[in-house]
């Protein structure tokens, strides 16, 4: 009797120590698993942001110590700079063009190469291909296509309209250069959005469409009344990605025009590179970064709260 109770208590004690050991082992694992990522992430993603908020209050060329505190001067200068206004406007133009042409085109392609088309895998693969090319490669290829003498575009146009003198595509300081760059953005990224739409479409059961067709709905009606509403979450997501992508635009613009001619294709990022980095005004550049953060951050917050909230119901 006594031996049973001692063995029971010994067993309970053993379990307690095993449990304690397991819990300790788990705690150690949690710390060891999180620590490397947390350190790297804090040092290189979070810390620079706070540092930028601080540096933005200084006039600083990045060489000596930061001593010249100028308060909000940098911000006043940026917000009063005509070139920066134009850069923001150009980002807006890219956002607008993405929303009204790129996303509809991507959706059109997703439906076009959707179910039932033979060779759809091939077409999807081709449409998506430019996404993996580097922006530098893409930018150079298209710089040649737009090349005034002997570029592919002018060559094709000279066959179609032999007498017409085409403008200098990337050399005209107005909306034309933005549209030319946007064509390249479109060429490179429409396949990305298409892939997302294709994935979204695959979640729509084929029976729903078939039922509608049996009920006599036309192809257009099926798309308008069934596909688009059910694709809502994906569409809202691609809008989000397109806007954030347009805000960050740098590589393609820098490779093709360096923000020129006459700042006609500057974006906020090329403005930051030119006026913050290249002119070694790191304090000024930091405040540009802060402004871009605030724009990204508030857009994300508002959009996720107001628009995408309904999609995270689960």
């Amino acid at each position: 009797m006594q031996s049973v109770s001692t063995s029971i208590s010994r067993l309970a004690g053993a379990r307690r120590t095993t449990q304690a050991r397991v819990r300790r082992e788990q705690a150690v694992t949690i710390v060891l698993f999180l620590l490397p990522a947390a350190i790297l992430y804090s040092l290189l993603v979070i810390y620079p942001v706070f540092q930028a908020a601080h540096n933005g209050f200084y006039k600083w060329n990045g060489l000596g110590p930061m001593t010249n505190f100028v308060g909000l001067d940098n911000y006043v200068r940026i917000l009063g700079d005509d070139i920066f206004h134009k850069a923001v406007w150009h980002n807006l133009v890219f956002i607008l063009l993405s929303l009204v042409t790129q996303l509809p085109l991507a959706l059109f392609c997703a439906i076009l190469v959707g179910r039932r088309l033979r060779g759809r895998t091939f077409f999807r693969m081709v449409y998506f291909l430019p996404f993996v090319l580097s922006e530098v490669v893409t930018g150079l290829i298209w710089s040649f296509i737009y090349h005034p003498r002997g570029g592919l575009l002018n060559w094709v146009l000279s066959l179609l309209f032999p007498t017409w003198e085409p403008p200098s595509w990337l050399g005209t300081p107005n909306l034309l250069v933005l549209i030319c760059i946007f064509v390249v953005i479109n060429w490179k990224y429409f396949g990305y959005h298409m892939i997302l739409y294709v994935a979204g479409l695959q979640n729509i059961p084929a029976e729903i469409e078939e039922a509608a067709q049996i009920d006599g709905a036309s192809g257009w009606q099926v798309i308008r009344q069934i596909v688009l509403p059910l694709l809502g979450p994906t569409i809202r997501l691609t809008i989000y990605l397109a806007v954030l992508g347009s805000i960050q635009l740098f590589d393609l613009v820098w490779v093709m025009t360096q923000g020129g001619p006459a700042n006609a294709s500057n974006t906020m990022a090329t403005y930051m590179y030119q006026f913050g980095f290249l002119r070694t005004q790191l304090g000024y550049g930091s405040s540009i970064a802060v402004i871009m953060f605030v724009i990204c951050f508030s857009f994300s917050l508002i959009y996720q709260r107001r628009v995408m909230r309904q999609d995270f119901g689960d």
Partner: protein
Amino acid sequence: MTAQRFSISMLLRYVIAILIALVVLIPLVMTVFGGLKTTGDLLSNPIRWPADHLHWENYDGILQSSSFWVQMRNSLFIMLITATGVVLLGSMPAFIFARINFPGRELCFNFFTLGLLFPLAVAILPLYISLRQMGLLDSHWGIILPQIAFGLPGTILILRGFFLALPQEIEDAAYIDGCTTFGMFRHVAIPLMRPALAAVFVLAMVGSWNAFFLPLLVLNREPLWTLPLGIMRFQGQWGTDWARILAFVSLTLIPTIIFYFFAERHIVTGLTAGAVKG
């Protein structure tokens, strides 16, 4: 009647699909063949077959130059370490956030996903200042570490989704068999996650291979340059010798396309998983 209408609309779909495919492919084909012409020939007709014979000398000249191979090696090195680091450092927190309960877990997870709001292109100038303080300028680690750090939020988000999808029974069985938490991660979860890890790895590879902005700021010394920087310098040097430039572009384009044919499935998996879970 319906069959006929069906086939006409089908035909129309094919015509449109093929036209779009041509718009994608013609610039690429033109680039590869443009490198095989003389510049004069290229400028007189950008898509015609070379007028006299194939001019391999453009490609040959680049393949003979040591700087091309140095840049190729630098790009490969940075790409492989970045992708390995992203998978290694990203899969561990993702596992914790998905399978282990502890107080403050949601807070930790939200701390990491906050990074999705700071895209690299926006954070780059502050990052440059921090890298300089840490003495990481003009070093490959100055590219690799930030790329891993900025890759973490998305990777953790994607992989957490996959870890969450593992059935609870597997985990229970492993623990009953005496598995530790680490053993569960290493010997049970990771082997089951191979497709997801491949997707994340491949996405990180593509991002690193194509990176331009960060190397542009961090790498000043030419022996450290990656291919995107090398192409820009080459274009600066040869200015209007477009055949030569297109040859250089092709030499970085062709490996990417070959890689794409093998890895496309993984890229799509990664992107759609990230999008759905994001």
